[in-house]
C-alpha cells in the first residue's frame, strides 16, 4: 500500500459551505493580511498556509469514501458515499473508457455509505470490473433497492460494468488486490464492519460507524488487538466522549478520546479522525483536532501518536 486518499469524510449527511460561510473565511483572510504585502506567489502561499483549514480551506462535505492506493493497477475503495462521485470522475479523466478494476469494501449499508453509487460513472462503462465486498447478507439487495422507483429514476440494471458482490466472513483473512483483508463486526444499528488491510509491511484500519460503549473489557480489548501496530487508523470520531456515552449512546458512533485511548494501547502510529458530525463547522472540527492532539500529548506513555483529521482531498502517504 502506498497512499490513502479521502474523497468523502462527512458523517451521516453530505454538507456544503454556505455563502455566509465563505464570506466569513474571506473576511478573516483579508483581515489577517491587512497591512501586509506579498512579494511573490510563494509568500502569498505561505500566508494562506498559515491560516489553517478553518479559514483557508474546508474539511468538506461528501459522505464516506476512502481510496487506498494498493501499489497495483486495481483501485481499492472503502464505502460508496457521495465522495465516490468525484473519485469516479477522476478515474474517468485518467482512463476514459479503458477498462479498470475497482474493489469496494462496504462498512455497512446505511444511506450515507451507499448513496454515491448511482453517480459512480465507471459503473456505467462496459468492460470495467467492479467487485463489492462486505459482511452483510443484504449487500446486493440494498444497493439495488436504492435505485428502484420512486427513489431514483435509473435502475441498477442500467449499469454496464461487470459488477459482482462478494460476501466476506469476519475474522478470516481474505486476499484481495494483493492485500490481506480482515473484517471485524462493529456495534452499529444493523451492524457494521471494520477492515484491516495489510500489504507490503503496511497496515491500514478503516473503522467507521462503530460505537465503543466501554462496558465490556473483552470487547474493547478485541478492538485494541484489531488495531494492533497499525500505521493508520481511520476512526469514527463523530461525537465527544460525553455525548457518545450519554445522550447519544446507542447511536452507533464513537469519539476522539476513545480513538486516542484505543490507538495508544494498540501502539498505532497515526490516528485519523473521520466521519465528522454534519452539524460541525470547520472551526469546530479544527477545535476537535486541537483538543485531540492535546489529549494525546497529556495521556502519552509511549511513542507519540500522530493525530490528524480527514478532509475531502486529503492524502496520507504510507
Amino acid at each position, binding site marked *: 500500500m502506498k497512499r490513502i486518499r479521502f474523497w468523502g469524510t462527512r458523517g451521516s449527511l453530505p454538507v456544503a459551505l454556505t455563502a455566509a460561510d465563505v464570506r466569513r473565511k474571506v473576511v478573516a483572510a483579508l483581515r489577517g493580511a491587512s497591512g501586509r504585502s506579498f512579494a511573490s506567489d510563494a509568500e502569498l502561499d505561505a500566508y494562506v498556509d498559515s491560516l489553517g483549514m478553518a479559514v483557508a480551506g474546508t474539511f468538506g462535505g461528501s459522505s464516506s469514501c476512502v481510496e487506498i492506493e494498493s501499489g497495483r493497477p486495481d483501485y481499492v475503495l472503502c464505502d460508496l458515499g457521495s465522495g465516490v462521485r468525484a473519485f469516479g470522475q477522476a478515474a474517468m479523466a485518467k482512463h476514459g473508457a479503458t477498462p479498470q478494476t475497482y474493489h469496494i469494501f462496504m462498512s455497512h449499508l446505511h444511506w450515507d455509505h451507499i448513496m454515491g453509487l448511482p453517480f459512480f460513472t465507471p459503473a456505467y462503462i462496459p468492460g470495467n470490473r467492479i467487485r463489492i465486498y462486505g459482511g452483510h447478507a443484504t449487500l446486493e439487495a440494498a444497493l439495488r433497492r436504492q435505485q428502484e422507483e420512486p427513489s431514483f429514476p435509473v435502475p441498477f440494471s442500467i449499469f454496464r460494468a461487470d459488477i459482482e458482490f462478494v460476501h466476506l466472513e469476519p475474522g478470516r483473512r481474505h486476499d484481495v488486490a494483493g492485500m490481506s483483508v480482515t473484517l471485524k463486526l462493529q456495534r452499529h444499528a444493523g451492524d457494521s464492519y471494520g477492515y484491516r488491510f495489510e500489504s507490503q509491511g503496511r497496515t491500514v484500519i478503516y473503522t467507521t460507524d462503530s460505537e465503543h460503549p*466501554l462496558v465490556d473489557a473483552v470487547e474493547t480489548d478485541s478492538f485494541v488487538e484489531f488495531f494492533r501496530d497499525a500505521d493508520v487508523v481511520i476512526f469514527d470520531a463523530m461525537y465527544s*466522549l*460525553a*455525548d457518545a456515552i450519554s445522550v447519544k449512546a446507542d447511536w452507533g458512533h464513537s*469519539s476522539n*478520546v476513545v480513538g486516542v485511548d484505543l490507538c495508544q494501547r494498540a501502539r498505532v502510529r497515526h490516528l485519523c479522525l473521520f466521519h465528522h458530525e454534519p452539524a460541525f463547522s470547520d472551526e469546530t472540527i479544527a477545535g476537535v483536532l486541537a483538543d485531540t492532539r*492535546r489529549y494525546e500529548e497529556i495521556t502519552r506513555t509511549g511513542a507519540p501518536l500522530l493525530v490528524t483529521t480527514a478532509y475531502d482531498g486529503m492524502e496520507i502517504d504510507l
Partner: protein
Amino acid sequence: MEFSSSRFADVFVAIPVGRVDHTNAESLNQALAPLLAQSDGVAPSLVLDFGRVEYISSVGLRVLMMAAKQARSSQARIAVAALQPVVGEIFAISRFNHVLEVFPSVREALAEISPSALAEFDAAQKPAAI
C-alpha cells in the same frame, strides 16, 4: 488505585488516588456502588475528591457517567472536585465538564450541595480542642 471515603451528613466524599484507566476502572466502579446505594429510600449525594487523581481514561470517565446516571435517578447529586490541571483538561476535552458538576474544592462542592454536610466537613477539619 487507592480509594477511601467519608460521610458528612447526607453526602459521601470519595477519594480515589492515582491513575484511573482500563486496568482499574472496574475497581472504582465497585468502590462507588455502595456509596450510591439507597438507604431507607434515600440516596446520599456524592462528591468525588479528585485532588490526587493523576489521570483518567475514557473507561474511567464512563464509570463516572454511570455513577451520575444512578445518582440522578435517585434524585441525589454528584460532583467532582479539586481536579488536577491535567485531569481538568481531560474533562474539558471529553466535554465531561458539561455533564458533571465540577468544583474547585471539596468544600465548595459541599457548600453547593448540602449545608449540613459542609458543617460536618468543616468541623472535621478543625483540630480537636484540648
